[in-house]
């Protein structure tokens, strides 16, 4: 493995998260669209997905989306400002700070949904 630094890992992670999201999105849309076939079918599907495996999968996708979104903003700053490139490393760390700040509450709530169940 080439020993690249922050930029390289930011790129790989952005790419991997992008692929994962588009794959999930395709499934997700198909799934929701299946509502066309009526509530029975749809509710059955939702029931099936109550399995925590799916719940965790969803959490993972949400985590990837959050990274992709924040790093996407980092990329945009680098592309359109004169200082973004100079501060790219700091920006990447900032991405992780914001990631934790936004991500932790979200993670907490979502995990509770998965494991604690509804009231």
């Amino acid at each position: 493995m080439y020993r690249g630094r922050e930029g390289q890992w930011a790129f790989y992670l952005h790419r991997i998260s992008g692929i994962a999201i588009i794959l999930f999105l395709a499934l997700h849309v198909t799934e929701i669209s299946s509502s066309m076939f009526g509530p029975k079918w749809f509710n059955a599907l939702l029931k099936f997905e109550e399995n925590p495996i799916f719940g965790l999968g969803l959490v993972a996708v949400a985590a990837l989306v959050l990274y992709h979104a924040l790093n996407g903003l980092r990329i945009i700053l680098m592309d359109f400002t004169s200082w973004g490139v100079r501060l790219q490393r700091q920006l990447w760390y900032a991405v992780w700070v914001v990631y934790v700040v936004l991500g932790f509450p979200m993670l907490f709530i979502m995990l509770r949904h998965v494991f604690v169940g509804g009231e």
Partner: protein
Amino acid sequence: MAFRARRLEEAKRLSTSNLELAWWVFMRVSGVMLVFLVLGHLYTRAVLFNFHHDLTYDVVARNMSTVTWKFYNWLLLFLSILHGTNGLRYIIDDYLPSPRARVWVKVIVYTLVFLVVVFGTISLWAWNYTPVR
């Protein structure tokens, strides 16, 4: 540093190779919009609701029947699909060196994506909530 075309032929020559630039800009513009759309979607669906238990046909259908949400979701669908598919195109171009394989994979991917969009759009407008008893 003068890029602006001064003559017609020049403008033509330049315009032919503008496509990649347009996509590049689109990725950024759509990206910014998606931040709000996707994170909003995530928030309303996964955080406000207990998506894992409370999400039922009823809940979704009631929500989906308002025009605002229809439009919101459709924009989300459209932009993220376009953004994601163009991203996939970049990736396919990068990792598939053989032009033949590239064409085939792209044909398949674009067809699937097209079907997903059509399917999604139809179903989106099909939501019409009448509570099931």
